[in-house]
């Protein structure tokens, strides 16, 4: 079963086929281009699907139908939107710092793209498997905040500036909680490599194996990652009722679309990291000694498990948005610095103690 679903057979076959008529350097370059194209395609599809999902989920929470006109059930709505955004006039206001204004979408997309490179989608389907995987993803994805600050500042618009400053304070604050809640699990795995972390969950997910500290860490991760991606109820960086559109008020057309695409990509990345570290990544659900049940679960390919878990996490984040009222900036910072951070520090100590005594499974 394991061999059947291993993507490294496919990648090795492609590698050998390319090696049969290309020099080693040519093979390397061709493979890099292939991987790059695959990720660009994945990025575009991800944006299309997530925007549609967001609109439909929002609509159902408000007892509406959402987009219904373009295509069956409105499925082609996002494609129509992309075409519309392509045709929109790119306006740069005359007070803005033109260079930084144009640079901001590049930086924000670059951060999202590079963070996505390290995600383990399935066995043997991971572009970059660093031994410092979690540190890498945390470091690269936090570069996006520079893009947000640049966008807000260079617009020379009061709404943009206030939105960007809020986003900056919020993202850097909650980044701590994201990293620390992930480290709570790293104490048990003893490795930062994402593929090793997934393999260590073959007999059970860390969410269950790590007892209560793991569950507390998961809750903190959910809250902090929602805040780090600027999603509601923490979306006060673009609070539309007070700041028009926050840091991207002045952006129009496709540049505006890239901010949205990056936001959805970041949502996917944090969900994927959460699913990998806490929910076993592409590992199927196994329950103790239930041989039959475990065997049936093994038949579901890892890639479905991964995307199932990620979809669940993304759905949770959309659910939050329509359940909780938006926080004020002082409440937001109080929540992080006076509650999540101290709880997190104590939680790591408890987890270290459990790891020391060997109480985890």
């Amino acid at each position, binding site marked *: 079963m394991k061999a059947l679903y291993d993507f490294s057979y496919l990648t090795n076959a492609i590698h050998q086929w390319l090696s049969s008529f290309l020099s080693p350097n040519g093979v390397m370059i061709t493979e890099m281009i292939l*991987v*790059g194209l695959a990720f660009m395609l994945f990025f575009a599809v991800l944006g299309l699907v997530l925007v549609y999902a967001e609109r439909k989920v929002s609509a159902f929470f408000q007892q509406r139908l959402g987009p219904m006109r373009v295509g069956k059930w409105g499925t082609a709505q996002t494609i129509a939107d992309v075409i519309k955004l392509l045709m929109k006039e790119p306006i740069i206001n005359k007070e803005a710092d033109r260079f930084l204004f144009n640079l901001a979408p590049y930086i924000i997309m670059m951060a999202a793209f*590079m963070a996505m490179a390290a995600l383990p989608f399935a066995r043997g389907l991971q572009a*970059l498997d660093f031994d410092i995987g979690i540190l890498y993803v945390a470091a690269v994805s936090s570069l996006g905040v520079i893009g947000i600050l640049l966008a807000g500042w260079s617009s020379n618009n009061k709404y943009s500036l206030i939105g960007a400053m809020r986003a900056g304070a919020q993202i*850097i604050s909650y980044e701590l909680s994201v990293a620390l809640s992930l480290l709570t699990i790293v104490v048990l795995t003893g490795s930062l490599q994402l593929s090793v972390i997934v393999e260590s969950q073959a007999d059970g997910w860390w969410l269950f194996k790590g007892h209560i500290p793991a569950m507390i860490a998961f809750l903190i991760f959910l809250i902090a990652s929602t805040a780090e991606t600027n999603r509601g109820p923490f979306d006060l960086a673009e609070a539309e009722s007070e700041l028009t559109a926050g840091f991207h008020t002045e952006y129009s057309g496709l540049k505006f679309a890239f901010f949205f695409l990056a936001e959805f990509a970041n949502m996917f990345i944090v969900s994927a990291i959460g699913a990998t570290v806490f929910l076993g990544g592409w590992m199927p659900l196994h329950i103790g000694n239930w041989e039959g049940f475990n065997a049936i679960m093994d038949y579901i390919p890892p890639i479905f498990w991964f995307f199932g878990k990620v979809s669940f996490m993304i759905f949770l984040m959309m659910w939050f948005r329509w359940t909780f009222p938006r926080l004020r900036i002082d409440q937001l*910072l109080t929540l992080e610095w006076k509650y999540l951070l101290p709880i997190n520090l104590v939680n790591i100590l408890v987890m*270290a103690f459990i790891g020391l005594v060997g109480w985890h499974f």
Partner: protein
Amino acid sequence: MGSEALVIFFICALIMVGAGILVSNLLAPKSKNLQKEEPYECGIPTQGTAWIQFRVGYYLFAIIFLIFDVETVFIFPWAVGMKQAGLAAFIEIVIFFLVLGLGLLYAWKKKALTWE
């Protein structure tokens, strides 16, 4: 693939944004209009520039963040080696967190964490 493949992801991101903006520039209409190019401010004429001083509270949080971010970097190698190092690592991290907690407590008592 090794870490040199990072370059390809960097380039891909640039191509994706660059190509998109290029196509958009070719397709989109362009018309000069003085009113349209003003910064948006609810439709009224813009009052002054937005490049002004803003509240110091944001800087304070940035400074506290810096301290804790460096501390997180210290915890990364500790978390990896925790199980092998055993009791010694546990005692050390307790001391480390006590010092850190004192720092947080100091910032708290100094009202650096209070938004006014």
